[in-house]
């Protein structure tokens, strides 16, 4: 039974990344709690809905948009990205090339989509197929933290759709940042990162400086 004073949030989340990194598998695991090696390649876009009981007062409904990974479908991403509130960018830890493509996906996303307050949408990086035991990229967590900071990811997770590792955690992380950015649209949600260009008062004082 739903409580009468329950709040409901609806977020559109994108799941993007190179072909075959496991975007569809992550979504199926998250939404249907299962895994199959027999998913069809996504042509265009696919959808799924996940309902989260966020806390006692809040229900979060997530529309997950599963976007085809082949480069040429990138010509349609502007339509797919429209009005999304957050994103996962996925790569395959066993294929370094898919990690190299991560910044390309991030740039594509940021160039085509900003939040109503002008900021980029919160994005979480997923290092998928971590069950495969090939940990080339992951043995240095500090490096990954650094990478995320430099490229504007709010966090990163080693995930496995096959073994159900960290997918719920990654999603909670993303939703947490979306809620935070919604309730506090001006201030940065990461207090340790200084973004002077977002501070309007500084610009004013600057231009005042310039005038005097």
């Amino acid at each position, binding site marked *: 039974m739903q409580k009468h004073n329950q709040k409901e949030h609806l977020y559109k989340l994108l799941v993007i990344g190179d072909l*075959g990194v496991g975007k569809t598998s992550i979504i199926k695991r998250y939404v249907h709690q299962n895994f199959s090696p027999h*998913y*069809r390649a996504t*042509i*265009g876009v696919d959808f799924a*809905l996940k309902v989260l009981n966020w806390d006692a007062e809040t229900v979060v409904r997530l529309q997950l948009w599963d976007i085809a990974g*082949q480069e*040429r*479908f990138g010509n349609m991403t502007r339509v*797919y990205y429209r009005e999304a509130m957050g994103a996962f960018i996925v790569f395959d830890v066993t294929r370094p090339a898919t990690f190299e493509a991560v910044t390309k996906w991030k740039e594509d996303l940021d160039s085509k989509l900003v939040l109503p307050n002008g900021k980029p949408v919160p994005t979480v990086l997923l290092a998928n197929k971590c069950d495969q035991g090939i940990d080339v990229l992951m043995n240095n967590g500090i490096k990954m933290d650094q990478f995320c900071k430099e490229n504007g990811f709010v966090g990163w997770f080693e995930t496995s759709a096959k073994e159900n590792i960290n997918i719920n955690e990654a999603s909670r992380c993303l939703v947490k940042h979306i809620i935070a950015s919604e309730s506090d649209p001006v201030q940065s949600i990461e207090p340790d990162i200084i973004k002077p260009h977002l501070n309007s008062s500084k610009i004013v004082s600057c231009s005042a400086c310039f005038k005097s």
Partner: protein
Amino acid sequence: RLEEVPLEVLRQRESKWLDMLNNWDKWMAKKHKKIRLRCQKGIPPSLRGRAWQYLSGSKVKLEQNMGKFDELDLLTGDPKWLDVIERDLHRQFPFHEMFVSRGGHGQQDLFRVLKAYTLYRPEEGYCQAQAPIAAVLLMHMPAEQAFWCLVQICEKYLPGYYSEKLEAIQLDGQILFSLLHKVSPVAYKHLSKQKIDPILYMTEWFMCAFSRTLPWSSVLRVWDMFFCEGVKIIFRVGLVLLKHTLGSSDKLKSCQGQYETMERLRALSPKIMQEAFLVQEVIELPVTERQIEREHLIQLKKWRETHGELQCKSPPRLHGAKAISEAEPAPRKALEPVPSIIVSPGPAPVPKARKSKEKSREKGPASPANGPGAEGNGAPGTTRELLHPQVSPHHQSKESLSSRESEDTYL
């Protein structure tokens, strides 16, 4: 649920089809309407693969290019494409017995066909949506035949669908939407209000020719008609599905939001996809090639205004078996007197000029006469630059065909 055709009827149909296949050129020239009718009734399963090759002109294409597939088959291919193709091999009809085992015959042939295409059209490479198309073909014919059939689909039926920028499919999305306005104003209004861009629901439908959308028996019936009548069938199927999913206020009650609407279009009601119902609706829907071409011009103009020139220039599409056979007659046919039914009232010298080019480009792979636009393997470099469907000789003959066709109801 499969529609059972009584065995007796099936045997009759088979012998009728055998007669047609054995006298194909004659049937094509004189009794095209009868072929169309028989495609609408469904091609007998035992002859389907052969019939598709005749209809698409891939049989002629193969004969004109003997050994070409084997030649491509021996080449290694660009690793960039091989990597992507290999990642897709186990993801096509993964539960079909032909494709179920990794490295099995089905997957091997799929690899060969898709790889050969990237070598045949290096500037197009591989698009993921080609894999299901090739897989359906391989269920009906050997790899070499499937390859040429795929070539015909990519170049004649759906030109530009799989090339780099995916512009042709986006244009067709706009055409579909515009046609929907006439077919089902209610569905059109709803999708407009929800701001649902056509590419959100029609990309997979059209690029895979509904092979991943409809129940299997319906896929085959749709493909039978598609090979005969061309892209019109794809548009009609799309319009029928939209109309019966979103076409009344009653149906719209349960899809108030954008997401609900898209969910509904993704999980279509089995009732409207059922073979007999769908095929009948598609046959009856009054959407013609002429309408599609007219809308194509309108949308192309709009596209140029908003996006600039098209970046991938495709040859004009040919609306089905008749148009293809007229545009690419078998070499020996050129010696025969031209049947009067092909004669076009349009600019007379154009088809002739084209024919001679056709011949010259079949001669050798690296003909320098083809110019910089040619890829060196028989690409119609000249037709590729033709953007305006109305200036194309194909469409001239097609228009005259459809008006003529409406007259010869005696067939």
